[in-house]
Structure formats: structure tokens, C-alpha cells
């Protein structure tokens, strides 16, 4: 009987597991879900400060973080990498756009992003909900 079990591993590998592998596509799907959840990591206030910072003028990452410090938002103080993660996420969502100027990447709000910001500041409950939704997509 033990001999049979010794074969279980090979047996399963040759049959049910033969073509069953966790594909790259599936791994990518996991990473995407994770990135969605990461949005939840930041606060509403930080997001709004960020939008305000780039609403009139494109800025690069370093300038953005400096501006945030000036507004007393220290979320990214020892966490610069996370700022770029957030910028990347927002770009994927179509809220901001970037372009390269002299080897540095400059970020600005898209029309969509500006609309969201204006509506949010007007106190629109829908926009507050949207922002919350953006941040809470994680809890799905």
C-alpha cells in the first residue's frame, strides 16, 4: 500500500496536474487587485491635496512631495516610493496624466480629474462618495 502512495505524487502530476499551472495572466490579475486595494491606503485629504497641487501647473514628483510637506501632509515623508505608486495608480484611472520634460516626469490633472476636484470642493456629496469609492474599492 505504501508503494501505491509513493506513486501518488507522480500519478497526480501526470494526470490532473499535467497542464494545471498558475499562469502569468492570473498572477497579473492578483497584482492588479492588490494595486486597487492600495488606493485605500491613503486618506481623502492627501488625495485632495495632491489634486490641488497639480491642478494649475504640471509638477514632478519631488515638487509634489515638497508642496505636500508645506501643507503639513507628511504621508510621503519617508515614503517617496509610495507617492509614485499613488501617481501611477491615479494615472491608470485617468485622473491625471504625465509627460517627460528634460528627463523628469511631470504630472497634471486631466479634465476628468479637474471636474472631480471642483465637484468635491463644491461639497457635492456625489463627489465625496466617488472619492470614498476610489479609496474603498479595496474592501470589495
Amino acid at each position: 500500500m505504501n508503494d501505491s502512495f509513493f506513486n501518488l505524487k507522480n500519478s497526480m502530476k501526470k494526470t490532473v496536474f499535467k497542464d494545471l499551472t498558475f499562469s502569468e495572466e492570473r498572477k497579473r490579475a492578483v497584482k492588479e487587485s492588490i494595486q486597487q486595494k492600495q488606493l485605500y491606503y491613503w486618506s481623502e485629504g492627501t488625495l485632495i491635496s495632491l489634486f490641488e497641487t497639480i491642478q494649475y501647473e504640471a509638477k514632478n514628483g519631488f515638487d509634489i512631495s515638497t508642496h505636500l510637506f508645506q501643507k503639513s501632509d507628511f504621508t510621503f515623508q519617508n515614503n517617496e516610493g509610495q507617492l509614485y505608486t499613488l501617481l501611477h495608480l491615479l494615472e491608470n484611472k485617468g485622473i491625471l496624466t504625465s509627460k517627460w520634460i528634460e528627463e523628469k516626469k511631470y504630472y497634471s490633472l486631466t479634465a476628468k480629474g479637474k471636474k472631480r476636484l471642483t465637484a468635491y470642493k463644491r461639497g457635492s456629496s456625489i463627489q465625496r462618495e466617488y472619492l470614498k469609492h476610489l479609496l474603498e474599492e479595496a474592501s470589495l
Partner: protein
Amino acid sequence: MNELGQVAVPEDGIENKEQMIDQLMNEYGDGILHLVYTYVKNETTAEDLTQEIFIKCYERLSQFNGKASIKTWAYRIACNHCKDYLRSWHYRKITLNEKIFGFTPSKSKEVEEEIITKDEETNLTSAVLALPIKYREPIFLHYYEELSLTEISKVTNININTIKTRLKRAKELLKEKLKEEV
């Protein structure tokens, strides 16, 4: 790391967690997928659940205290997730439909029929997969994954003596089943 080549990512940075999950998927992706398959016996469902399992691992990464090995920890999440699925209303609805209407929306029947040939190997595999879950589980973890009884106990959160008993009973059942088919 960033565009200005400035300071790198801190210990608990998000990118670090993402990297860890990446590594986890590369090392244990297939292992966990196979484990999940033994519970649900359907390739697509197994892939879906495995995805969910790695997302759970990400969410709980901060709770991992390094006491157990990360493999045991991940496998435990996998095991629990599968059992939750099997207890779920959704799954019960599917199996009920199958019993009443003989309707299989999934691939499981096709896969199982492919397995049923006169080959000795496939007989063993299908015999094991046909066992009730509580016997299938320790058999797979012990003879395929080669986990010790203690490790099995950690992964399944089942008392080690219970595991011993189930393994013994599982072997008896398999012996009977395989004798029948010869």
C-alpha cells in the same frame, strides 16, 4: 527606484509587500493551485480561488509574525479559503443543481471522465479524488505535499490525533476501492 533616483523604499513599503506576494506566487503558485484543485476538482474554480487566496495573503501579510514558515502560513490560508468555498451557498447551489438535473456548468465532469481509463496511475488519482474531503485532505498533504503530521495539523487546524485517525481510515477506504477495480 523613483524617477529622480532618490531614496529607496522603506521596510513596510507597499512595493515591498507587492514584491513578497510576487515571490510567494512564483514559489507556491502551482503548489497552492494543486492543493485547491483537490478540494474543488474543477480547474477554473481552482484558478479563481487561488487568485483570491493570494489576495488574502497580501491583506494579511502584516499579520504574519514569522513564527511558522511562510509556506505553512500560506497553505493554511488556502485550506481555510477552500473550506469556506465548499460551505458556501454558491457552491452548494451548484452541487444541488448537479444532483437534481445532472447539469454541469463546470468542466469537472469532463475532467473526471478523462481520468477514468484503465491506467493504474489514473486509478489511484481518481480514487484519492473520490474520497470524502476529510480523508482526501490528509492523504494529499501527507503523500503528495509530504508534510509531517505536525505540519498538516498546523495547516488544517485539526488535532493531530484526528489526522492520524483519518489517514488510517483513508488508507482502508482506498485499499477497498483499488481492490474493487483490479
